[in-house]
């Protein structure tokens, strides 16, 4: 066991994956000697050298497109897009190719690659450095999307992503890279893609969240317990696509009420999908409308005001109270 933050545990997972499987390579802008703008690739260049840790030219489509080629060639590229706000540059490569080669070739070729990118607000960054648009990937058939929420699951999920035979988007909530530490077991772990986690059991309502927003949700759970005596069940999605609908639906069948919390824009966001699935599968159990506490349908504001955009515990608590008193 070792106590570490999430930046470190992601780094550890990369290190371990590269050690155990020589097909794994890491590529992206500044991932080499600079060790990544968030230092997520710390030590990798030094240890594995320039044949396995590639500083690329500044071109996102180039990064993802060549990674697709390498994956089909038999490697396992883990490519980094420096900030998720720039991964639109390479979206066509993911949509047209990474997500489709297996289907297109009836299983003959496949694209076992991972695209990592720091996403989300909360670090006083510039425009285009705080986006949270995971729903676009969740809406893209053929991709899987995972989002960790802490050091231990970050490492395990990254291992699962790298070992997955299909392309996985691994979005890193950068606001919590160094926010807290956790015990991470010595032994390498994985975490099945497609399984969500009940962080805290409860009976009065279900709060569903993921990534950095989970912190606000956790805080809200405590506030609700302290101030209202309410026992909320908290689900950490961990995988955004494919959704663990069973877990969500079972919880809501128990509680009858739900609030979903994420920082991406509301319209057609993950929250909408969760509502739609619950509506389909647990309609008769719902005692109140499911509320969405999300980023607004605007670009996330420049950093002097980003905290008003990001869901915080107070907004979550308020939504829960409305749901509970419906």
């Amino acid at each position, binding site marked *: *066991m*070792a106590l*570490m933050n999430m930046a*470190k545990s992601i780094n*550890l997972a990369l*290190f*371990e994956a590269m050690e155990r499987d020589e097909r794994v*390579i890491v590529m992206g802008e500044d991932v*080499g*000697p600079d*060790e990544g703008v968030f230092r997520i690739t*710390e*030590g990798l*260049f*030094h*240890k594995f050298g320039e*044949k*396995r840790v*590639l500083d*690329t*030219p500044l*071109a996102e*489509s*180039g990064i*993802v*497109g*060549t*990674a*697709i*080629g*390498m*994956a*089909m*060639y038999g*490697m396992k*590229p883990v490519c980094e897009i420096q900030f998720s706000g720039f991964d639109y540059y390479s979206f*066509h*490569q993911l949509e*047209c*190719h990474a997500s489709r080669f*297996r*289907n*297109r*070739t*009836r*299983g*003959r*070729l*496949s694209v076992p690659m991972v695209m990592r990118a720091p996403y989300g607000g909360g670090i006083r960054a510039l425009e285009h450095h705080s986006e949270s648009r995971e729903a676009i990937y969740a809406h893209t*058939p*053929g991709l*899987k999307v995972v989002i960790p929420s802490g050091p231990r699951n970050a490492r395990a999920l990254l291992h699962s992503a790298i070992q997955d*035979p*299909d392309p996985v988007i691994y979005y890193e909530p950068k606001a919590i890279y160094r926010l807290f530490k956790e015990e991470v077991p*010595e032994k390498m772990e994985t975490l099945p893609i*497609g399984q969500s986690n009940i962080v805290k059991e409860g009976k009065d309502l279900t709060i569903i969240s993921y990534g950095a927003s989970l912190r606000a949700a956790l805080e809200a759970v405590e506030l609700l317990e302290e101030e209202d005596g309410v026992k909320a069940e908290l689900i950490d999605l961990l995988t955004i696509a*494919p*959704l663990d*609908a*069973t877990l969500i639906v079972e919880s809501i069948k128990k509680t009858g009420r739900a609030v979903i919390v994420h920082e991406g824009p509301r319209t057609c966001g993950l929250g909408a999908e969760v509502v739609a699935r619950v509506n389909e599968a647990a309609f008769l159990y719902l005692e109140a409308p499911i509320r969405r506490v999300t980023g607004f349908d605007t670009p996330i504001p420049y950093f002097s005001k980003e905290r008003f955009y990001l869901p915080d515990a107070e907004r979550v608590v308020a939504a829960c109270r409305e749901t509970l008193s419906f």
Partner: protein
Amino acid sequence: MTNYVKYPLKAKPNSVQQSLKVVTAMPRKPIELPQIEYMSILDEDAVVDKALEPKIAEEELKNIYRYMLLARRTDERMLMMQRQGRLGTFPQSSGHEAISMGSCIHLKKSDWHVPAYRELAGLLYRGWSIDSTLLYWNGFEEGARPPEGVNDLPVCVPIASQLLHAAGIGMGMNLRGEKGVVMTYFGDGASSEGDTHEAMNFAAVYQAPVVFMCLNNQYAISVPLSKQMRNATLAQRAIAYGMPGIRVDGNDVLAVYVAAKEAVERARAGEGPTLIEGLTYRFTPHTTADDPKRYRSEEECNLWTKREPLNRFKKYLLNKGVYTEAQLTALEEELDAEIKAAIARTEAAAVSEELSNPLAMFDYLYADMPPYLNEQREELKSHLEKQKAKAGKSPQHASGTAR
């Protein structure tokens, strides 16, 4: 602390290679640049430039011709089928056979072939069946499945995007220390896409063994070269990436052969990528849905049709005594029979249980089908079963919506 984290944390500062010296002498002075050449060997009247003529073994010459011809005849037959409603819209490959065969003939089986969509000759040569082409252009994913043991990517529809895959495969060879060559194809229109730029730059930076074959047929659907670019040749783009570039007569299979041979040899020797521009012409419509009369004159088209590659190569082979007229007639008959057999096979296959099962749309998306996809599969399955049951009662078929 565990074992896992006991690795060195600090990288050595990278000693930057400054390839760029600062020139301190002040006068304006020209920067030295590589040369870009034009090459043609076999002209449109089948006159050959003896000095440049490559020595090609008879077997190889026959192979080249065979697949050029097979592609041409298949293409022609497909056009008829399309007109009869037996195939979907497709882009003809006729006229592009020299670029395809003159280049991919240099590939070993273990090398990679990354086509765009006018490389039918190359696909057939590489081991794709005529059947897969027919299936592909008739709306069956099965036609995009590369044959076992063949290192090809299938036809690529999103323009220029395949060039990055080729670059990536080449990078992979280098990174893993494996010898190999990647031959990839794109059009003059494709040259304008950002992905083309990124692919050539990546290949150059990593010195990937990639040959970028540009089929400059002077049109992107209706858009002529003059509206596609201001530069006089595509070959000169090589200068932008510090790689060798050459323009050849793309209707001259010998010129393509020589340029591609040099490029492949460089790639195998670890000397990185090459850009080859084959100047040709699309004497057919863009696809069977296109009407070229809207945007170009018949004179222009006729002029270029005369320069097409197959006929001049045939004359060359006859002149050289590689074939007799009689042998060529026999070859035509042999290929015709091959094509007809393939058509019969695929038209039967298309209605077979296996290929007509719509549920296959769910079956290959992921290695393991996620639960929600399985639910959707069940949803469609039960819908189809209900339809079937109903159709048993009434003759009206279910899919009769307006579209």
